[in-house]
């Protein structure tokens, strides 16, 4: 798509959303057999899957920490997830995204419970449509819970951007391509910010407003994450009762 004349008109975005509206979200918990925990997360056009293994042994051993678990995070885009085929394997962008995503989740994991262990988080982007890192963090957070990793809380993530001088929640691909700013954050339910990146152009006041908007988005996502986990948990209880 080439640059449209307007990305937002009369308070309605090209995909029909209001400025502070998230894209549709679909969550499935425990979708993989081999992983200790897993989650499939659709976030608008993003389709991501997260798997968690651990706590388990650390290889190579020199990466062990004597007083806590090592948390590792691998964000990876499938070759076919984007318009132009992506070469397989990590690139500089995915290495940076993996780093900040790991740091977004580490604060809520009780790492000190598992010295000399690894908690491995793998996030695969099967389809990308702007916001893959936030979708990945949301999925990973649920997968960690599904794996039974002790956590202080979940982490929820979404972005705020600016299009046509208007702040909007959760940019889609076209808005990201032709917008003026993009700011992904991740947050605990208590409002602590565990990820914050921004690029583009925001005034000081716009930034403050954007941060509040993003926090509201995260709160909404948090409720959906909780529901998805509760649903799985209660269906298990039911299953147990039926036996």
């Amino acid at each position, binding site marked *: 798509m080439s640059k449209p004349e307007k990305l937002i008109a009369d308070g309605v975005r090209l995909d029909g959303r209001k400025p502070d509206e998230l894209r549709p979200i679909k969550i499935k918990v425990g979708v993989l057999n081999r992983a200790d925990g897993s989650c499939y997360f659709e976030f608008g056009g993003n389709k991501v899957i997260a798997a968690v293994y651990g706590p388990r042994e650390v290889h190579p051993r020199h990466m062990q920490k004597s007083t806590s678990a090592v948390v590792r995070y691998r964000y990876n885009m499938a*070759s*076919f997830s984007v318009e132009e085929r992506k070469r397989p394997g990590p690139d500089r962008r995915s290495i940076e995204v993996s780093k900040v995503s790991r740091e977004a989740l580490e604060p809520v994991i009780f790492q000190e419970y598992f010295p000399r262990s690894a908690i491995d988080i793998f996030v695969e982007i*099967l389809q990308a449509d702007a916001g893959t890192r936030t979708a990945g963090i949301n999925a990973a957070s649920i997968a960690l819970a599904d794996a039974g990793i002790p956590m202080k809380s979940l982490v929820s993530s979404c972005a705020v951007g600016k299009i046509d001088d208007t702040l909007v929640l959760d940019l889609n691909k076209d808005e990201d391509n032709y917008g003026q700013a993009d700011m992904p954050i991740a947050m605990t339910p208590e409002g602590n910010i565990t990820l914050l990146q921004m690029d583009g152009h925001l005034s000081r006041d716009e930034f403050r407003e954007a941060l509040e908007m993003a926090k509201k988005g995260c709160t909404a996502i948090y409720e959906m994450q909780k529901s998805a986990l509760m649903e799985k948990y209660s269906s298990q209880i039911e299953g147990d009762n039926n036996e």
Partner: protein
Amino acid sequence: MSNEVISELRKDYIYNLMIKGEREDGRAFNQYREITIDTNVIDKAEGSARVKLGDTHVVVGVKIQPGTPFPDTPDQGVIITNLELIPLASPVFEAGPPREDAIELARVTDRGVRESGALDLSKLCITPGEKVWMVFIDVHVLDDGGNIMDASALGAIAALMTAKLPASRFGLGDDSVVPLRDVPVSVTAVEIGGSIMLDPSMDEESIAGTKLTVTSNQAGELSAMQKSGVHPLTTEQINYIVDIAIEKAKEIREKFLVI
């Protein structure tokens, strides 16, 4: 590959069942696990398929872009098949460049498509010697429950069957379907203690001495074969596998891969 993840006890259990003519999940020796194929699951790909084969789960995406032909085949399109055993899919897979298992799986998947003539490469030529369609078949393994080989091959052909040449996006006219002219199906057998079983589960695969993959086409003829693993096979075993593989491929094709 995954020898370490199965305990000795479990091996004995499966082996003893096998001697009684049984499998851990109650299947007959020549029976496949449940197969589910969903196509067009990735909008960004020109073709895609999600295959579940028992506990095994793969997503195959086909990306098609213009590119330069190989010097020795200036008027033919190019197929490039890639398969990754990403660490998300199994505790024994590791990050890093693909290892020999992944490379073998990718290459056998590739030969199944290529050698069956499923893709008419001459119809993928845009300008001879200059520009042809490059067909990238990327197999993403999400869950290893055994027999990734057959799941990958199924996913590859299913994704191709729904794939489009994205001509309009590159200013090359109208989009069209990918020129398919055959539907190869791979069937993998394992040999365990002299018995032959189709579609091994992960545990069966890990105790099998050897695997034989047989890819056959619509005419019931062979397009590709690959023995994998250290245990030898007798001529009789091979001929037996070829026979049932061709039949089983026919069944699968008719049930899941109707054009």
